[in-house]
């Protein structure tokens, strides 16, 4: 955490005298109650897990592209992982499981909710901090042991959990079936603890948005990022307890001899799937809604134009928040669930395409007749739109239950979910990190290396994931350690080789981002207050903002956040807190009050 200190020291030096800041180093940067520091703490933690999850993906891609060949550096791993450097099925199944677990629970979800929920909500609604700052701190410090416990699985006998990130029972419940005992228990315990962190975070966000909005910041002046984070927090609050409950039942099955999911004593394996996906499908929207919201903010900024159809964008977010609860069965079409339910879930799943389509058309409407600036965050936000379209459309194939019979549990699903979670969520995260980096750290990221990283990522990402559609159409199953076991898959093995090489390039490209992130922190150009000429309240305070955000005077809000190119202003933007339209021309850089 020493690095955090460097990043924010400029603020403490400047403002230490104005604000009674007798907090110790520990209080300022480690056990801080400041939502901005907590957001940055979540950022560092989840980027670390993103790197770990990516590393595990490389292990999988090595094995799939070159089955039986020694993994580079594989001989350094313990012999329970590799044999003469060759990845063992034990390690492969662990990598499959922990890649999914890290990415969903410890990377993408905290990046969206933990980082930007924390950092943006108070700043964007004009609040000095979260409604419950201490609970906010507790939320982060609960996530840390959860992450460490999940990691610890790799270092205990039997290795980490290996039943897939979906942890289907009875495989996950019985160590005689997986060969993993402690690792599966750690998986359950870690997610139960992480659930507490998420619940503490979510009611904090909900309360803050409802109660701490600045004067004039009514609901329909909220930025779409805040709407999305608000609906996401509601989904988290309602969905996570279901996962926690299911994980507790699974933990009991593993440890104290209950049989909730074991048919031998009257349990029901499908109960796990119903519980998991009742959580899991809202989770899918938890992982995409904040990205949609932040991309909306950034696209309006880049296009210098009001967001197209603000109300329908808000309604679409709310509609997804409701419909998301009624589609979980589409994960279970082939599970043995009553087939009549299959038809019901097919229709509800197809209908949820409607709000997603509305959002896409509105993003197109926003750039139409704009005056588009291609800054790095804008590039990522546009890639988000164009990749999310592919992920959304490929979802229609599996929603149609008869065709899902064929592609369920194949690489078509892997392609689809990565177009949504990488093409969608992760591009939105790159957009958001590069957009709010100057505010967080007071320095600009290097735009040249930002663009290099963007273009290489876009190309290698598509080379990696697009051909997975073809593999799936060929019948290539997921989660198989060695596809060459099957004659019908040997003929598409060259596609696996191509995907693996692309994936290695994609992974390598991310070190450009990491280097840009770290170097800019120390050596980046000093960020002005409002580098993107944005209307939001966070851009009316210093970069980084002082403790307490807006000082003694709470900003007053006069309009929505998307008043770009307004005829009332000579500039092409009009900050939310500027009192008199028309008088704006005299104040290109409004100072906050």
């Amino acid at each position, binding site marked *: 955490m020493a690095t955090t200190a460097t990043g924010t020291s400029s603020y403490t030096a400047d403002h230490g005298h104005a604000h009674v800041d007798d907090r110790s180093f520990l209080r300022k940067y480690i056990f801080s109650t400041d939502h901005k520091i907590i957001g940055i703490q979540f950022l560092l933690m989840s980027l670390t897990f993103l790197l770990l999850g990516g590393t595990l993906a490389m292990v999988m891609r090595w094995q799939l592209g070159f089955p039986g060949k020694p993994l580079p550096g594989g001989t350094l791993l313990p012999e329970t992982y590799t044999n003469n450097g060759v990845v063992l099925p034990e390690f492969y*199944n662990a990598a499959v499981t922990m890649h999914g677990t890290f990415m969903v629970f410890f990377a993408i979800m905290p990046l969206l909710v933990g980082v930007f929920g924390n950092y943006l909500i108070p700043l964007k609604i004009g609040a000095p901090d979260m409604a419950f700052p201490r609970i906010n701190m507790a939320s982060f410090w609960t996530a840390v042991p959860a992450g460490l416990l999940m990691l610890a699985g790799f270092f205990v006998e039997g290795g980490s959990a290996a039943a897939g990130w979906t942890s289907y029972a009875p495989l996950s419940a019985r160590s005689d079936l997986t060969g993993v005992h402690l690792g599966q228990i750690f998986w359950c315990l870690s997610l139960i603890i992480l659930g507490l962190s998420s619940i503490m975070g979510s009611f904090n966000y909900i309360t803050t948005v409802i109660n701490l909005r600045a004067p004039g910041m009514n609901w329909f002046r909220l930025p779409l990022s805040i709407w999305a984070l608000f609906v996401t927090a509601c989904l988290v609050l309602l969905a996570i307890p279901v996962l926690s409950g299911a994980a507790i039942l699974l933990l009991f099955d593993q440890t104290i001899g209950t049989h909730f999911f074991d048919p031998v004593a009257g349990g029901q394996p499908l109960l796990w799937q119903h519980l998991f996906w009742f959580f899991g499908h809202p989770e899918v929207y938890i992982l995409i809604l904040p990205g949609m919201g932040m991309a909306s903010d950034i696209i309006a900024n880049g296009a210098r134009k009001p967001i197209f159809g603000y109300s329908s964008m808000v309604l679409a977010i709310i509609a997804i928040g409701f419909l998301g609860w009624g589609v979980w069965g589409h994960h279970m079409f082939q599970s043995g669930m009553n087939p*009549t339910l299959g038809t019901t879930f097919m229709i509800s799943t197809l209908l949820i395409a409607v709000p997603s389509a509305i959002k896409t058309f509105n993003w197109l409407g926003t750039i139409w*007749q704009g*005056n588009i600036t291609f800054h790095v965050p804008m590039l990522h936000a546009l890639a988000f739109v164009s990749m999310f379209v592919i992920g959304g459309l490929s979802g229609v194939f599996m*929603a149609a239950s008869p065709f899902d019979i064929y592609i369920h549990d194949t690489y078509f699903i892997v392609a689809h979910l990565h177009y949504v979670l990488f093409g969608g969520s992760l591009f939105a995260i790159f957009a958001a990190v590069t957009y709010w980096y100057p505010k967080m750290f007071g320095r600009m990221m290097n735009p040249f290396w930002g663009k290099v990283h963007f273009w290489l990522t876009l190309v290698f990402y598509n080379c990696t994931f697009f051909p997975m559609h073809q593999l799936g159409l060929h019948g290539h199953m997921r*989660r198989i350690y060695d596809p060459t076991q099957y004659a019908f898959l040997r003929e598409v093995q060259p596609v696996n080789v191509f995907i693996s090489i692309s994936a290695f390039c994609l992974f390598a490209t991310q070190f450009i981002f990491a280097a840009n992130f770290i170097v800019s922190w120390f050596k980046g150009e000093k960020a002005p207050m409002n580098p993107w000429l944005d209307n939001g309240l966070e851009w009316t305070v210093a970069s980084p903002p002082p403790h307490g955000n807006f000082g003694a005077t709470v900003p007053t809000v006069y309009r929505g956040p998307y008043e770009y190119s307004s005829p009332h202003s000579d500039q092409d933007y009009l900050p939310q807190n500027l009192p008199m339209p028309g008088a704006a021309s005299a104040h290109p850089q409004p100072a906050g009050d």
Partner: protein
Amino acid sequence: MGNFLSWMLPPGASTFVGDIDWIYYLILVVTGIAFVLVEVALIVFLVKYRKRPGRKATYVHGSTRAEIIWTSVTAVVVVVIGVLSAPAWDKIKGRNGVPPDAMPIEVHAKQFEWNITYPGADGKLGTTDDFTVRGQLHVPVDRPTVATLTSEDAIHSFFVPAFRIKQDAVPGMHIRVWFQPTKTGEYELGCAELCGLGHYRMRAVVTVHTQADYDRWVAQQAHSVAQR
């Protein structure tokens, strides 16, 4: 490598090919059109409305008319896809979809093998001439077969890509799945649900015989069972 960018489905060998593949091609065309429209519009807008000095973006907040059009068009398209797909689902997976004259077999999955019980010469399961073979699925062509799927341990998934059929085998449940092969030859049966360390090698050979060949194979098996 021929499959690299092919959007065609591989050749199939059951009646479900006719029920399922056209749905795929229909969705491919519909989503293909949507994909091209959206991505082309995106690229055209990005080029046409790129930043130029002295220009200001048009100050508009939306269009109710456009919203109504694209919302209702999308809703109609997805509902039509759903309505067109539903009959195939009922036929393949519906409780009443199994043809009454289908030949019954039992498929018992366990880590990491498929054990298939055949009804013998009398065509009925539960009689003394039943026999069980590991790792080989033999079925007659042009005649429906109904398999009762069970599992010994974890969840497995019965997947024959050439037949376009997939169904999980869940411990504690008896799940019926049927198919009717249309071409003789050898195919592969794989496990599609992660079931443990040997999941990747949980495969079996599927042989589709003519009825006469199938009867001969059954007689041969019955003979070798009797000798044991």
